[in-house]
Protein backbone atom coordinates (compact mmCIF):
# COMPACT_ATOMS: atom_id res chain seq x y z
CA UNK A 1 0.00 0.00 0.00
CA UNK A 2 1.37 3.39 -0.91
CA UNK A 3 1.15 5.30 2.35
CA UNK A 4 1.69 8.69 0.85
CA UNK A 5 -1.43 8.30 -1.17
CA UNK A 6 -3.40 6.54 1.55
CA UNK A 7 -6.19 8.42 3.25
CA UNK A 8 -4.72 7.40 6.60
CA UNK A 9 -1.74 9.70 6.20
CA UNK A 10 -1.46 13.25 5.06
CA UNK A 11 1.41 15.64 5.17
CA UNK A 12 0.23 18.64 3.27
CA UNK A 13 0.70 21.02 6.21
CA UNK A 14 -1.70 22.77 8.57
CA UNK A 15 -5.01 24.22 7.60
CA UNK A 16 -6.82 26.80 9.74
CA UNK A 17 -9.20 24.23 11.15
CA UNK A 18 -6.34 21.86 11.94
CA UNK A 19 -4.46 24.56 13.81
CA UNK A 20 -7.56 25.65 15.72
CA UNK A 21 -8.46 22.11 16.66
CA UNK A 22 -4.90 21.35 17.72
CA UNK A 23 -4.83 24.41 19.97
CA UNK A 24 -8.21 23.50 21.44
CA UNK A 25 -7.19 19.90 22.05
CA UNK A 26 -3.88 20.89 23.60
CA UNK A 27 -5.62 23.44 25.83
CA UNK A 28 -8.02 20.79 27.05
CA UNK A 29 -5.08 18.47 27.70
CA UNK A 30 -3.22 21.15 29.65
CA UNK A 31 -6.36 22.03 31.60
CA UNK A 32 -6.89 18.39 32.46
CA UNK A 33 -3.28 17.99 33.51
CA UNK A 34 -3.49 21.13 35.65
CA UNK A 35 -6.58 19.83 37.41
CA UNK A 36 -4.88 16.48 38.02
CA UNK A 37 -1.79 18.18 39.42
CA UNK A 38 -3.89 20.43 41.66
CA UNK A 39 -5.78 17.40 42.96
CA UNK A 40 -2.43 15.66 43.52
CA UNK A 41 -1.17 18.64 45.47
CA UNK A 42 -4.33 18.79 47.59
CA UNK A 43 -3.91 15.07 48.29
CA UNK A 44 -0.30 15.63 49.34
CA UNK A 45 -1.27 18.54 51.61
CA UNK A 46 -3.94 16.45 53.31
CA UNK A 47 -1.53 13.53 53.73
CA UNK A 48 1.03 15.85 55.25
CA UNK A 49 -1.53 17.27 57.67
CA UNK A 50 -2.47 13.76 58.78
CA UNK A 51 1.19 12.93 59.34
CA UNK A 52 1.58 16.09 61.45
CA UNK A 53 -1.42 14.98 63.49
CA UNK A 54 0.05 11.49 63.89
CA UNK A 55 3.35 12.86 65.06
CA UNK A 56 1.75 15.05 67.71
CA UNK A 57 -0.80 12.45 68.77
CA UNK A 58 1.86 9.79 69.26
CA UNK A 59 4.14 12.27 71.04
CA UNK A 60 1.43 13.17 73.55
CA UNK A 61 0.45 9.58 74.29
CA UNK A 62 4.05 8.39 74.55
CA UNK A 63 5.12 11.20 76.82
CA UNK A 64 2.09 10.79 79.10
CA UNK A 65 2.61 7.01 79.24
CA UNK A 66 6.26 7.49 80.17
CA UNK A 67 5.41 10.05 82.87
CA UNK A 68 2.71 7.85 84.37
CA UNK A 69 5.01 4.84 84.55
CA UNK A 70 7.28 6.82 86.87
CA UNK A 71 4.49 8.46 88.87
CA UNK A 72 3.54 7.61 92.44
CA UNK A 73 0.13 9.27 92.37
CA UNK A 74 -2.12 11.32 90.17
CA UNK A 75 -5.36 13.25 90.15
CA UNK A 76 -7.67 13.78 87.21
CA UNK A 77 -10.25 16.53 86.90
CA UNK A 78 -12.66 16.86 83.97
CA UNK A 79 -12.75 20.48 82.88
CA UNK A 80 -14.72 20.20 79.63
CA UNK A 81 -17.43 17.61 79.27
CA UNK A 82 -19.50 17.83 76.15
CA UNK A 83 -20.69 15.65 73.30
CA UNK A 84 -17.87 16.76 71.02
CA UNK A 85 -15.14 17.92 73.37
CA UNK A 86 -13.96 16.18 76.53
CA UNK A 87 -10.85 17.43 78.31
CA UNK A 88 -9.19 16.39 81.56
CA UNK A 89 -6.61 18.20 83.65
CA UNK A 90 -4.07 15.80 85.03
CA UNK A 91 -1.74 16.33 87.98
CA UNK A 92 1.01 13.73 88.14
CA UNK A 93 2.96 13.29 91.37
CA UNK A 94 6.55 12.04 91.43
CA UNK A 95 9.00 11.33 94.15
CA UNK A 96 11.55 14.11 94.42
CA UNK A 97 14.83 12.53 93.27
CA UNK A 98 16.88 14.58 95.77
CA UNK A 99 14.61 14.50 98.80
CA UNK A 100 12.98 11.10 98.89
CA UNK A 101 10.40 12.18 101.42
CA UNK A 102 9.04 14.93 99.20
CA UNK A 103 7.03 14.94 96.02
CA UNK A 104 6.86 17.13 92.93
CA UNK A 105 3.82 17.61 90.76
CA UNK A 106 3.53 18.16 87.03
CA UNK A 107 0.36 19.67 85.67
CA UNK A 108 -0.95 18.66 82.25
CA UNK A 109 -3.39 21.19 80.87
CA UNK A 110 -5.12 20.79 77.48
CA UNK A 111 -6.68 23.47 75.36
CA UNK A 112 -9.04 22.74 72.47
CA UNK A 113 -8.43 25.87 70.41
CA UNK A 114 -5.59 26.36 69.79
CA UNK A 115 -4.78 22.66 70.05
CA UNK A 116 -2.10 22.82 72.70
CA UNK A 117 -1.20 20.65 75.66
CA UNK A 118 1.03 22.28 78.25
CA UNK A 119 3.03 20.66 80.99
CA UNK A 120 3.57 23.17 83.81
CA UNK A 121 2.75 25.94 81.38
CA UNK A 122 5.24 24.85 78.71
CA UNK A 123 3.77 23.52 75.43
CA UNK A 124 4.54 19.88 74.90
CA UNK A 125 5.52 20.58 71.29
CA UNK A 126 6.36 24.19 70.38
CA UNK A 127 5.82 23.44 66.67
CA UNK A 128 2.26 22.23 66.95
CA UNK A 129 -0.09 23.50 65.67
CA UNK A 130 1.96 24.60 62.63
CA UNK A 131 2.95 28.26 62.74
CA UNK A 132 1.92 28.89 59.13
CA UNK A 133 -1.28 26.95 58.50
CA UNK A 134 -2.45 26.27 54.98
CA UNK A 135 -5.76 27.27 53.41
CA UNK A 136 -8.34 27.24 56.20
CA UNK A 137 -6.38 24.71 58.27
CA UNK A 138 -7.47 24.29 61.88
CA UNK A 139 -6.45 21.67 64.42
CA UNK A 140 -8.60 21.03 67.48
CA UNK A 141 -8.27 18.73 70.44
CA UNK A 142 -11.60 16.98 70.77
CA UNK A 143 -10.65 14.58 73.54
CA UNK A 144 -7.88 14.31 76.13
CA UNK A 145 -8.96 11.98 78.90
CA UNK A 146 -7.43 9.65 81.44
CA UNK A 147 -10.02 7.15 82.60
CA UNK A 148 -9.66 4.44 85.26
CA UNK A 149 -10.05 0.86 84.13
CA UNK A 150 -13.59 -0.18 83.41
CA UNK A 151 -15.09 3.28 83.37
CA UNK A 152 -14.71 3.82 79.64
CA UNK A 153 -16.71 1.28 77.70
CA UNK A 154 -15.20 2.02 74.32
CA UNK A 155 -11.43 1.94 74.09
CA UNK A 156 -9.69 4.07 71.56
CA UNK A 157 -12.72 5.15 69.61
CA UNK A 158 -13.39 1.63 68.36
CA UNK A 159 -14.71 -1.31 70.32
CA UNK A 160 -11.24 -2.80 70.58
CA UNK A 161 -11.90 -4.44 73.88
CA UNK A 162 -15.61 -4.33 74.37
CA UNK A 163 -15.63 -6.44 77.54
CA UNK A 164 -13.51 -4.05 79.60
CA UNK A 165 -16.50 -2.96 81.67
CA UNK A 166 -17.48 -6.60 82.28
CA UNK A 167 -13.89 -7.61 83.13
CA UNK A 168 -13.51 -4.72 85.57
CA UNK A 169 -16.21 -6.23 87.78
CA UNK A 170 -13.90 -9.13 88.63
CA UNK A 171 -10.71 -7.08 89.08
CA UNK A 172 -9.51 -5.96 92.48
CA UNK A 173 -9.34 -2.34 93.57
CA UNK A 174 -5.55 -2.20 93.44
CA UNK A 175 -5.63 -3.03 89.73
CA UNK A 176 -8.50 -0.71 88.89
CA UNK A 177 -6.98 2.24 90.74
CA UNK A 178 -3.62 1.87 89.00
CA UNK A 179 -4.72 1.10 85.43
CA UNK A 180 -5.81 3.95 83.21
CA UNK A 181 -6.80 4.48 79.61
CA UNK A 182 -5.36 7.47 77.76
CA UNK A 183 -7.51 8.75 74.90
CA UNK A 184 -6.40 11.65 72.74
CA UNK A 185 -8.44 12.77 69.75
CA UNK A 186 -7.48 15.39 67.20
CA UNK A 187 -9.81 17.03 64.70
CA UNK A 188 -8.50 18.61 61.49
CA UNK A 189 -10.45 20.94 59.21
CA UNK A 190 -9.34 22.22 55.81
CA UNK A 191 -11.31 24.62 53.63
CA UNK A 192 -12.39 23.45 50.19
CA UNK A 193 -10.57 24.71 47.11
CA UNK A 194 -13.76 26.29 45.80
CA UNK A 195 -15.71 28.57 48.09
CA UNK A 196 -19.10 27.27 49.00
CA UNK A 197 -18.05 23.63 48.99
CA UNK A 198 -17.95 21.81 52.33
CA UNK A 199 -14.61 21.71 54.17
CA UNK A 200 -12.62 18.53 54.47
CA UNK A 201 -12.41 17.19 58.01
CA UNK A 202 -10.49 14.34 59.54
CA UNK A 203 -10.68 12.87 63.03
CA UNK A 204 -8.13 10.57 64.56
CA UNK A 205 -7.88 9.14 68.03
CA UNK A 206 -4.75 7.85 69.76
CA UNK A 207 -4.97 5.67 72.83
CA UNK A 208 -2.93 3.58 75.21
CA UNK A 209 -3.59 1.74 78.40
CA UNK A 210 -1.04 2.30 81.16
CA UNK A 211 -0.46 0.51 84.44
CA UNK A 212 1.02 2.81 87.10
CA UNK A 213 2.98 0.25 89.04
CA UNK A 214 4.28 2.65 91.72
CA UNK A 215 0.74 3.08 92.97
CA UNK A 216 0.82 -0.47 94.29
CA UNK A 217 4.16 -0.24 96.01
CA UNK A 218 4.89 0.59 99.64
CA UNK A 219 6.25 4.03 98.67
CA UNK A 220 2.80 5.27 97.80
CA UNK A 221 1.35 3.98 101.04
CA UNK A 222 4.06 5.86 102.91
CA UNK A 223 3.41 9.06 100.96
CA UNK A 224 -0.28 8.88 101.74
CA UNK A 225 0.44 8.35 105.43
CA UNK A 226 2.75 11.37 105.39
CA UNK A 227 0.12 13.46 103.64
CA UNK A 228 -2.36 12.59 106.35
Amino acid sequence: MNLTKSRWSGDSGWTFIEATLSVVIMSIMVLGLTIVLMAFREHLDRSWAVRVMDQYGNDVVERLTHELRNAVDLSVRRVVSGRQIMLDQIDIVYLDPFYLDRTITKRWRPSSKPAIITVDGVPLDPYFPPRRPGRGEVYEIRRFTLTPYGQDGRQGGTAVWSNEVFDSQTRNEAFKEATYLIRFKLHYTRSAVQRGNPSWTFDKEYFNRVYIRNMNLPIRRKLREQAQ
Partner: protein
Amino acid sequence: MSVMLEKWRGDKGSIDFVQLIVGLLIIGIASIGTLSALSYGYGQLDQQMRHRKAIEVGRSWVEYLQGRLHCDFDKGKFEDAKLANGTLNSALRTLLDDRGTTEVYDDVYCKVSHGKLFPMNLPETSSMDWWEIYVKVEWAEPDEDEQYPLHKVEFFARMVPEGY
Protein backbone atom coordinates in the same frame (compact mmCIF):
# COMPACT_ATOMS: atom_id res chain seq x y z
CA MET B 1 -15.50 32.56 -0.60
CA SER B 2 -16.18 29.15 -2.02
CA VAL B 3 -12.42 28.56 -2.25
CA MET B 4 -12.05 29.43 1.44
CA LEU B 5 -14.97 27.21 2.37
CA GLU B 6 -13.43 24.45 0.30
CA LYS B 7 -10.15 24.85 2.15
CA TRP B 8 -11.83 24.78 5.58
CA ARG B 9 -13.85 21.72 4.70
CA GLY B 10 -10.88 20.01 3.18
CA ASP B 11 -9.29 17.01 4.82
CA LYS B 12 -5.88 17.21 3.26
CA GLY B 13 -3.07 17.40 5.79
CA SER B 14 -5.36 17.10 8.76
CA ILE B 15 -4.48 15.15 11.86
CA ASP B 16 -4.78 11.61 10.73
CA PHE B 17 -6.15 8.57 12.49
CA VAL B 18 -2.80 7.15 13.58
CA GLN B 19 -1.72 10.44 15.11
CA LEU B 20 -5.02 10.75 16.93
CA ILE B 21 -4.75 7.25 18.36
CA VAL B 22 -1.15 7.75 19.42
CA GLY B 23 -2.04 11.04 21.12
CA LEU B 24 -4.92 9.48 22.99
CA LEU B 25 -2.69 6.57 23.94
CA ILE B 26 -0.07 8.88 25.42
CA ILE B 27 -2.67 10.80 27.40
CA GLY B 28 -4.22 7.55 28.58
CA ILE B 29 -0.90 6.09 29.73
CA ALA B 30 0.01 9.30 31.59
CA SER B 31 -3.40 9.40 33.30
CA ILE B 32 -3.30 5.75 34.27
CA GLY B 33 0.20 6.17 35.64
CA THR B 34 -0.78 9.20 37.73
CA LEU B 35 -3.95 7.64 39.08
CA SER B 36 -2.13 4.39 39.91
CA ALA B 37 0.50 6.33 41.86
CA LEU B 38 -2.18 8.23 43.78
CA SER B 39 -4.13 5.07 44.55
CA TYR B 40 -1.00 3.20 45.69
CA GLY B 41 0.05 6.08 47.94
CA TYR B 42 -3.39 6.27 49.50
CA GLY B 43 -3.37 2.53 50.15
CA GLN B 44 0.07 2.73 51.76
CA LEU B 45 -1.09 5.49 54.13
CA ASP B 46 -4.06 3.36 55.17
CA GLN B 47 -1.79 0.37 55.71
CA GLN B 48 0.56 2.40 57.89
CA MET B 49 -2.38 3.70 59.90
CA ARG B 50 -3.56 0.13 60.57
CA HIS B 51 -0.02 -0.86 61.57
CA ARG B 52 0.13 1.96 64.13
CA LYS B 53 -3.31 1.07 65.45
CA ALA B 54 -2.20 -2.56 65.86
CA ILE B 55 0.80 -1.36 67.87
CA GLU B 56 -1.52 0.64 70.15
CA VAL B 57 -3.75 -2.40 70.64
CA GLY B 58 -0.79 -4.67 71.38
CA ARG B 59 0.79 -2.26 73.84
CA SER B 60 -2.49 -1.81 75.67
CA TRP B 61 -2.78 -5.56 76.06
CA VAL B 62 0.80 -5.78 77.39
CA GLU B 63 0.01 -3.09 79.97
CA TYR B 64 -3.09 -4.99 81.02
CA LEU B 65 -1.12 -8.20 81.53
CA GLN B 66 1.60 -6.37 83.44
CA GLY B 67 -1.00 -4.83 85.73
CA ARG B 68 -2.69 -8.16 86.32
CA LEU B 69 0.57 -9.93 87.11
CA HIS B 70 1.70 -7.19 89.45
CA CYS B 71 -1.38 -6.78 91.59
CA ASP B 72 -4.27 -9.03 90.57
CA PHE B 73 -3.00 -12.53 89.92
CA ASP B 74 -3.57 -15.73 91.85
CA LYS B 75 -2.29 -18.99 90.36
CA GLY B 76 -4.88 -20.87 92.40
CA LYS B 77 -7.81 -19.19 90.67
CA PHE B 78 -9.11 -20.88 87.52
CA GLU B 79 -9.50 -17.62 85.61
CA ASP B 80 -5.93 -16.55 86.35
CA ALA B 81 -4.53 -20.00 85.52
CA LYS B 82 -6.30 -19.78 82.18
CA LEU B 83 -4.76 -16.37 81.62
CA ALA B 84 -1.30 -17.74 82.40
CA ASN B 85 -1.71 -20.50 79.81
CA GLY B 86 -1.98 -17.98 77.02
CA THR B 87 -4.50 -17.35 74.27
CA LEU B 88 -2.52 -18.17 71.12
CA ASN B 89 -5.12 -20.77 70.13
CA SER B 90 -8.09 -18.63 71.05
CA ALA B 91 -7.16 -15.13 69.95
CA LEU B 92 -9.49 -12.23 70.59
CA ARG B 93 -10.87 -10.88 67.32
CA THR B 94 -11.36 -7.14 67.46
CA LEU B 95 -12.02 -4.33 65.04
CA LEU B 96 -8.89 -2.63 63.72
CA ASP B 97 -10.23 -0.32 61.02
CA ASP B 98 -13.90 0.23 60.18
CA ARG B 99 -13.01 1.95 56.86
CA GLY B 100 -16.17 4.00 56.70
CA THR B 101 -19.22 3.90 58.86
CA THR B 102 -21.76 2.97 56.19
CA GLU B 103 -20.56 -0.54 55.30
CA VAL B 104 -19.46 -3.42 57.55
CA TYR B 105 -18.24 -5.93 54.96
CA ASP B 106 -15.04 -3.93 54.34
CA ASP B 107 -14.00 -3.70 58.01
CA VAL B 108 -10.54 -4.94 58.92
CA TYR B 109 -10.24 -7.10 62.02
CA CYS B 110 -7.18 -8.12 64.00
CA LYS B 111 -6.48 -11.03 66.33
CA VAL B 112 -4.90 -10.24 69.69
CA SER B 113 -3.34 -13.04 71.69
CA HIS B 114 -0.63 -13.62 74.24
CA GLY B 115 1.69 -16.55 74.81
CA LYS B 116 2.10 -18.57 77.96
CA LEU B 117 3.21 -16.39 80.88
CA PHE B 118 6.51 -17.86 82.06
CA PRO B 119 7.81 -17.22 85.56
CA MET B 120 11.56 -16.71 85.49
CA ASN B 121 13.72 -17.54 88.48
CA LEU B 122 17.38 -16.62 88.58
CA PRO B 123 19.69 -19.22 90.18
CA GLU B 124 20.87 -16.71 92.79
CA THR B 125 17.40 -16.05 94.17
CA SER B 126 14.93 -18.33 95.86
CA SER B 127 11.69 -16.81 94.63
CA MET B 128 10.40 -15.86 91.23
CA ASP B 129 12.08 -12.81 89.72
CA TRP B 130 9.92 -11.82 86.82
CA TRP B 131 7.27 -12.91 84.35
CA GLU B 132 7.99 -13.20 80.62
CA ILE B 133 5.19 -11.80 78.47
CA TYR B 134 4.64 -12.26 74.74
CA VAL B 135 1.80 -10.53 72.91
CA LYS B 136 0.97 -10.81 69.23
CA VAL B 137 -1.42 -8.84 67.02
CA GLU B 138 -2.16 -10.21 63.55
CA TRP B 139 -4.30 -8.86 60.77
CA ALA B 140 -4.90 -9.17 57.04
CA GLU B 141 -5.10 -6.20 54.69
CA PRO B 142 -8.37 -5.70 52.76
CA ASP B 143 -7.22 -7.60 49.67
CA GLU B 144 -5.77 -10.52 51.65
CA ASP B 145 -7.27 -13.65 53.16
CA GLU B 146 -8.23 -13.11 56.79
CA GLN B 147 -7.72 -16.81 57.55
CA TYR B 148 -3.98 -16.44 56.89
CA PRO B 149 -2.97 -12.99 58.13
CA LEU B 150 0.32 -11.77 56.74
CA HIS B 151 0.81 -8.74 59.00
CA LYS B 152 1.94 -9.06 62.57
CA VAL B 153 3.36 -7.04 65.44
CA GLU B 154 4.90 -8.77 68.43
CA PHE B 155 5.73 -7.49 71.89
CA PHE B 156 8.17 -9.01 74.35
CA ALA B 157 7.91 -7.67 77.87
CA ARG B 158 8.65 -8.53 81.46
CA MET B 159 6.92 -7.80 84.72
CA VAL B 160 8.01 -8.24 88.31
CA PRO B 161 5.69 -10.17 90.60
CA GLU B 162 3.50 -8.66 93.28
CA GLY B 163 5.22 -6.58 95.89
CA TYR B 164 8.16 -5.51 93.72
